[in-house]
């Protein structure tokens, strides 16, 4: 959605939105985590609302870790989707219009299918990146084993304990494997989808 807006629309706040979306990419992850803490903390403006109205607490929970990951990989995702939307052929949408397809119809039947390789690749890369998220998660959701501990957090924790090298090596191997699978899957999915689209 955000990618579509950024790729197609031209409005006054566009560059601001663009900057906000891309902020986590350039900001130190710890800062992102801290900002989340400020916003979504139990006493933060959004966190308080969630807590009071729905009884949801994000800080130091698995959900919080997920949120931190999502915020961190969002720009990666948006960039990838936006690139594929921008390279999509506007001529095809015009053709669809003359054939009677309205805005939503075109989005569902023309734009999204044609952008699907980019979206798929973006999603897989984002997932792989997510697994490796460290700074924002430790700041926002802490490092609670079995709850908010991501792989790198576990590796880091293992290294802090005397004799934990073996465990760290194991975990690193898992991490390496997951990253490789992620990259290969994205490559494969991209190629498969492009073939399906007749490119």
């Amino acid at each position, binding site marked *: 959605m955000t990618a579509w807006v950024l790729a197609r629309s031209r409005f006054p706040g566009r560059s601001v939105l663009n900057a906000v979306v891309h902020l986590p990419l350039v900001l130190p992850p710890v800062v992102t985590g801290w900002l989340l803490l400020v916003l979504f903390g139990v006493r933060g403006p959004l966190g308080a609302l969630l807590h009071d109205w729905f009884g949801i607490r994000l800080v130091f929970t698995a959900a919080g870790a997920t949120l931190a990951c999502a915020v961190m990989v969002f720009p990666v995702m948006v960039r990838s989707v936006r690139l594929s939307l921008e390279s999509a*052929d506007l*001529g*095809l949408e*015009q*053709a*669809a*219009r*003359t*054939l*009677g*397809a*309205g805005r939503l*119809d075109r989005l569902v039947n*023309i734009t999204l*299918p*044609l952008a699907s390789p980019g979206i798929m690749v973006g999603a897989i890369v984002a997932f792989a990146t997510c697994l490796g998220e460290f700074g924002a998660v430790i700041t926002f959701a802490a490092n609670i084993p079995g709850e908010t501990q991501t792989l790198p957090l576990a590796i880091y924790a293992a290294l802090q304990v005397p004799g934990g090298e073996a465990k760290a090596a194991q975990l690193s191997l898992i991490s390496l494997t997951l990253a490789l699978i992620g990259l290969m899957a994205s490559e494969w999915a991209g190629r498969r989808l492009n073939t*399906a*689209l*007749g*490119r």
Partner: protein
Amino acid sequence: MTLSVELHHHFSTVTIDMAFSVPNPGVTVLFGPSGSGKSTVIVAAAGLLRPDQCRIAIDGEILADTDAGIWLPPERRRVGLVFQDSRLFPHMSVTNNLMFGMRRTAERIIDFDEVVALLGISDLLARRPNTLSGGERQRVAIGRALLRQPQLLLMDEPLASLDSSRKAEILPYLARLKTMLQLPVLYVTHSLDELSQLADSIVLIDSGSVVAAGPIAEIAARADLPLAQRDDAGAVLSCRVASQYAARQLTRLTWGPAELWIPQADLPEGLDVRVRVPAREIILARTEVDSVRDAFSLHNVLPGTVRAIADDPDHRAVLVEVALAGGSVLSRVTPDAVTRLALGPGTPVLALIKSMSIEVLGGAQGSPRRPGSGGANDVRRADDLRRLRAGPRPS
């Protein structure tokens, strides 16, 4: 029954200001140099560009009228558009491409199977656009636009991106389509071939305004239009095959009350054909010579009068429009000849037309030449195709 278009739009380089009315049904070719505003008419009619001022009406039914605040978006107009690049959806099969517009309209005037048969694309239905040749793609694109069940068909240089042999492959399909459709068609092209074969009417456009508009027989024979200045200028005549003379290897055509003899053409008697007579091939004579047919290797001697004369400096020539019994022809002669024969408007002359110079335009209506390859299994009779004729449209 007319299609009327009024268009006013200001671009940074050119101001479009035109108005014309053309018969419906019928193919109207918009002809003119690049950038003269032909495509603007197409995109405005499709609704893809909203001009400063625009009014389009078919038989009084208003498609767009900016002054009255009527401007339907493209998706709510029943207008079929064939682009120069076919713009097929790459992620869909040919069938789904064809059905795309059809699924989004309730009308069922033009039938799927008939369009498929007419365009010879029955073998392609399961394929993806990227596996099709340029000519096949364009045929599918034409089918897709037709199945949108349009009130108006727009074709923006549909053959321009194809090489000449592919063009020759599609032209017969278009010529056949044209006789079946009960629709107004606006067709943009630069090609005199397409113009001569397909146009019922011509709108000549230059620098955003209409230079001339009218039936092809009239416009192509006018001496004073830019069309006449082309190397390959010449009148287009609507004739009918009258009789075959196998022994003499000749075919006689009737052209209104007049007749034309051409080298024997393999066409059934009674068929309507179009022929083109290049301007440079017509000799003008003043004197009646009774024995001209016996003394010369000439079959066509037609009496008429000079209607108009125009200079053609590029060819060091003069263009003479001659009104004959069947209609007008255009003759390109030297200025010296005009002086010697003392030609002027109203002068009686004979037009001498070599039978060999008369071009029978390919894809004669109703029985197109079959392209060399493809579509061999979909030979159909004209009777079957008549059914494609649209019934009375709900207004």
